[in-house]
């Protein structure tokens, strides 16, 4: 039995295909879905499109690891130092609402047309929501957990791994999920707005360049890949959630 979501996806796909094939939607706007899928296969199999996808994934992973590590360090320090926490929160209130693309001109001026600019944009997108979530989660660890851990005398490192991390994990997962979405959107936008010289161009650039050549089929292949990657990552988060916090009974 198909779920309702799948039912609607199939309805949309059939509508798309039928209207595109009948010429109700011009092919230069929406090529038929089957054409896009066949083209995706050709590009992946024979024309090195996988390298384009890998370039975007590599960039976001690099940027994400840097931002995540920095957020952990900053959140940990702010857990011990109140004035530092106030400073971080003040900066968070100012910078978090800014979309990454809004700071692009400044970043380009400072770093130029290099990958560093992309990393800074990803950092901006990831760091602020993640650090805020982590700081909040550290503050919400129940005092009973700490007291109990001290009373039974477990070492601090064990306390961190077996008490604090499970306690903050729901917040951490939600923060990572939220910041990944922001980072992904920022990366694709930035790649589309400017491109760095070299052969390692990502999906945003792929969409931009194919738009320049009026090649809507390849543009749609890029869009489809972005959707598929987003769905795959979301699924991955769901699996992690099921195997951790749901299994531990932290959430239902």
């Amino acid at each position: 039995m198909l779920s309702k979501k799948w039912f609607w996806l199939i309805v949309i796909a059939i509508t798309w295909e039928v209207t595109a094939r009948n010429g109700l939607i011009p092919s230069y706007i929406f090529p038929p879905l089957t054409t896009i899928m066949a083209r995706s296969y050709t590009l992946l199999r024979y024309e090195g499109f996988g390298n384009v996808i890998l370039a975007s994934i590599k960039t976001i992973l690099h940027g994400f690891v840097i931002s995540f590590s920095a957020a952990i360090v900053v959140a940990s320090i702010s857990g011990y130092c109140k004035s530092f926490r106030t400073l971080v929160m003040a900066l968070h209130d100012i910078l978090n609402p800014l979309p990454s693309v809004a700071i692009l001109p400044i970043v380009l001026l400072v770093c130029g047309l290099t990958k560093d600019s992309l990393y800074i944009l990803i950092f901006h997108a990831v760091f602020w929501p993640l650090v805020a979530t982590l700081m909040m989660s550290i503050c919400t660890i129940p005092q009973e957990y700490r007291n109990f851990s001290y009373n039974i005398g477990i070492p601090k490192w064990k306390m961190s791994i077996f008490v604090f991390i499970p306690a903050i994990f729901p917040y951490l997962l939600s923060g990572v999920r939220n910041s990944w979405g922001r980072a992904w959107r920022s990366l694709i936008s930035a790649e589309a707005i400017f491109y760095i010289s070299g052969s390692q161009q990502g999906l945003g650039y792929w969409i931009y360049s194919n738009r320049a050549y009026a090649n809507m089929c390849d543009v749609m292949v890029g869009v489809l890949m972005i959707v598929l990657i987003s769905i795959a990552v979301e699924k991955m988060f769901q699996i992690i959630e099921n195997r951790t916090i749901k299994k531990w009974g932290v959430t239902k």
Partner: protein
Amino acid sequence: MKKRFNVVVSSALATVLSLTLATGCSHKKSTTDKVTIAYNPSGYGSAVSHLMIAENTLDKYLPDGVTAEWVEMSSASDIRDALANGTVDIAAPALSAYISAKENDMPITLISNYGNAMVKLYSCCGYTDISDFKEDDVLAIKGLNTNPQISFLAYVKENGLDINKYTNMLSKIPESESLAMLETDNGEIEGAILSYPVSNEAEKIENVTLIADFKDVIDDYNLGNCLCANSDFYNENYEVVVAFESARDEIMDSWNSKLDHNAQILSELYECDKAEIAGIMESLPPTKEITGYNKLSALMYESGMLNKQPLSFEELPNYDKIPH
């Protein structure tokens, strides 16, 4: 019963919504009282339009009750897309932009050639030849599928150089910013591909050297701007297209006979010396004839810009009406 009814209504709504989204954005006009014309405010390839606006030439030829609205657009892709969806009726994009539009079934009709491009390659780090550029160097270019990019590609191909190596050097940077980067020589770019009149500014900078003038390949490949119309507009308002052609002819016919006057107008627009622009106008007058269409489309196909074998010039539906 009620559930089934809901599903049917939702499906119908989804279909209507998707059709509205896909088709509702296009602007189709069956008869017109206004013709919208896009032009590049700073490119030499649009010089005919600049003179037409300055002299108010088009109004003399337009049918009664039809007015002209000129809109500025500097990106070839934006001009092409505006022509395809009907927000612009007539425009002069790069010929390469027309070819990519045609090969992807966009409803755009080619009318004639319109103006020639003037593109040169400059370096700011002491290079004197194109072969001096190294693989990790950066060459600034204003955009993809533009006359500078295609002329560079054609030059690389004609000189037997490695297309991949040189294509990977390109970085999209607006020409005014490239000029500033050349002047400051801060190591961000090693060279820039510039079109007139920005190229003229580059020549005045002390540390900048001219690496290549793409004039020969520009002539061979017919690189420049071509006059196009939205296909529906072309078919339904042909008298307006003819009026535009008449205005274009008047400007082209008086190109040399009123050289001094025309040069004065363009020199003010491009902020350059009158004698200099007069010299360029004499050596590079606009022409109506399309000459290198097949060569250009073959180059675009070979370099992967087109996914299928392009139509030949002779196969265009209105081939007989296009000057060649």
